[in-house]
């Protein structure tokens, strides 16, 4: 039976890993939006399912999510979650005539997907450089709904028998625009062990 354990040293390495990824993503976003982007929070830990949805304000909070599947040395799921006001602010910067309808149309959806793609791409590149892994990412998929309903597909592949998963989450704030973007990296259960092994190796060899 599989049960994950993470010691404090590995946890620090995981947090560092999140910082580096977020740093790259912040640079990518600042180029896209031509403004300063600040990375504000990084959370990296072994987390029960119930707490993962609390990070974005509870399971029923309506969010825009970009889902990307990662495969290569490790496989896993990556989500970029944004609050709807943040999405509106992003779209104002990205699209010539933002629509003020209640539902996002195809153009808005593909703009959201592109932002998710750029952010996750930066994150994935940083991680693969850091760990010397080769990683690829799928085409992004976008959906807007309750946070818990969007994240459950990610948890299915990540959770151990105790229903815990490795969570690496980051919040990015675009100065003056307050764009909150949360990253969730949820490695598959097998991927988690590989990732932790690589991290432990890094710690030992400096």
């Amino acid at each position: 039976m599989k049960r994950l354990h993470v010691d404090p040293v590995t946890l620090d390495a995981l947090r560092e890993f999140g910082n580096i990824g977020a740093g790259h993503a912040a640079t990518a976003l600042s180029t896209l939006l031509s403004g300063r982007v600040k990375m504000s929070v990084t959370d990296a830990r072994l987390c029960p399912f119930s707490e993962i949805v609390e990070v974005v304000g509870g399971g029923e909070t309506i969010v825009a999510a970009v889902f990307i599947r990662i495969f290569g040395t490790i496989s896993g799921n990556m989500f970029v979650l944004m609050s709807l006001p943040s999405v509106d602010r992003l779209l104002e910067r990205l699209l010539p005539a933002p629509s003020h309808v209640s539902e996002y149309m195809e153009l808005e959806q593909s703009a959201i997907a592109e932002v998710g793609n750029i952010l996750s791409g930066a994150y994935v590149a940083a991680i693969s450089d850091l760990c010397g892994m080769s990683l690829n990412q799928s085409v992004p998929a976008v959906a807007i709904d309750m946070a818990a309903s969007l994240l459950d597909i990610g948890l299915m592949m990540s959770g151990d028998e105790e229903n815990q998963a490795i969570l690496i989450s980051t919040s990015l704030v675009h100065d003056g625009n307050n764009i909150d973007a949360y990253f969730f990296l949820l490695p598959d259960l097998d991927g988690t062990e590989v990732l932790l092994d690589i991290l432990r190796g890094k710690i030992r060899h400096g």
Partner: protein
Amino acid sequence: MVDEKEQIRIGIAEGAILTGSGTLMTAGLGSCVGLVIYDETRLLAGMVHIMLPESPHVQPPHPQKYADTGIAWLYETLLQQGASHAHLRAKYAGGSQMFQALQMEGLRIGERNVRAVSMHLERLQIPVIGTDVGGHVGRTVWFELPSRRYFIRTARGDERHL
């Protein structure tokens, strides 16, 4: 405290039994299935938040997570609480595919969850009274006793019951 209605919130991959007036609820079902089995003649019902169709082990530490072991857990627990097999009925909702653009077969878990739930209920010969499954929408669901109504609310604010 006999008059007080019990409100039980069920998290992802969890389950609970309600033995009296009250509510069983689970928030934000995506590809998961929220299954309720209840006794038609008593104030007795149970809910599981099923995440995957099949358990990798015979006795997983959290049987409620999987359709096969979750339904077995629910069925046996209800019988232990005094339910009779002949009076058991089921209602369930969920099993969406939230990300429409995903083409990967392995990610069409919603459909597989619904198929597994339906199959195990049939095997146990528990009649299904109502379902609300599939589509591309998240659902918050709750089941009430004594009404035995199963309510569904979506992110768009639609509300209905089974």
